């Protein structure tokens, strides 16, 4: 059941990326370019996604446990530390260079564009490289 839910939510998420246009790096880069060929579509993606997520999360808050797992795994940290800000800044630099973040890049993988095939292994390497840093407190 957990595997079926994983697959179904992944497919739904991926279809959302495709239909919204977030899977197209050109659209992402144009959203990030308000002084050039600005395409505000991504603001609508974010609004729709945050709205639906917030409704689902508030329903989850009213329950003792998820349907198919023993407990909710809500993120617990609340501190703003240098790693959070530095990591987000490096992430933003990469996002602005390529127009890809992890979800769209993986969704685009079967389309096998050379740029995607270069991006995804490098992204995995980047995640592994981060483990060489001293562990976060």
């Amino acid at each position, binding site marked *: 059941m957990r595997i079926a839910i994983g697959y179904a939510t992944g497919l739904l998420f991926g279809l*959302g990326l495709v239909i919204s246009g977030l899977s197209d790096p050109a659209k992402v880069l144009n959203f990030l370019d308000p002084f050039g060929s600005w395409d505000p579509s991504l603001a609508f993606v974010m609004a729709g996604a945050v709205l639906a997520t917030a409704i689902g*999360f508030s329903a989850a808050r009213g329950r003792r446990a998820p349907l198919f797992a023993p407990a909710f795994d809500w993120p617990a940290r609340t501190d703003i530390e240098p790693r959070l800000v530095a990591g987000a*800044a490096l992430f933003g630099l990469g996002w602005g260079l390529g127009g890809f973040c992890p979800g769209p890049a993986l969704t685009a993988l079967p*389309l096998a564009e050379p740029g995607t095939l270069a991006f*995804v292994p490098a992204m995995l390497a980047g995640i592994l490289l981060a483990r060489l840093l001293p562990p976060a407190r």
Partner: protein
Amino acid sequence: MTEFTPIASTLGGLLIGAAAAILMLALGRIAGISGIVSRLLPPAGEGTGWRSAFLLGLMTAPVAWFVVTGRAVEQTVSGNLPLMVAAGLLVGFGSAVGSGCTSGHGVCGVARLSTRSLVATAVFVSVAAATVFVVRHVLGA
């Protein structure tokens, strides 16, 4: 230029949010793609099954889209391979160090009004926009 698509983008956003909502209600997990990928890289622990299935579902989406609509997914990816390698390294490293990406911080975290995620999202959107500004309007690439 890309076409402004407010209706399709809102609809797609709602689907993304519905997926995140179902994952939380059913399995109690945050739909953060970088976290899901990171926890599948060795040493993989508990939860490998649903995480692999989620990524498989993501990758099925463009195929399902083509089968249902008969249209290929519209996409323009840079063919500058050294640039894409650098971008991939930064996205992977940055999301691992910053504990999240567009989905975990930008969607799930913002929906929870998490201060950490609001800060992270503001930082990565600003830096990404500044990067595009420099690349397109300063360097003229």
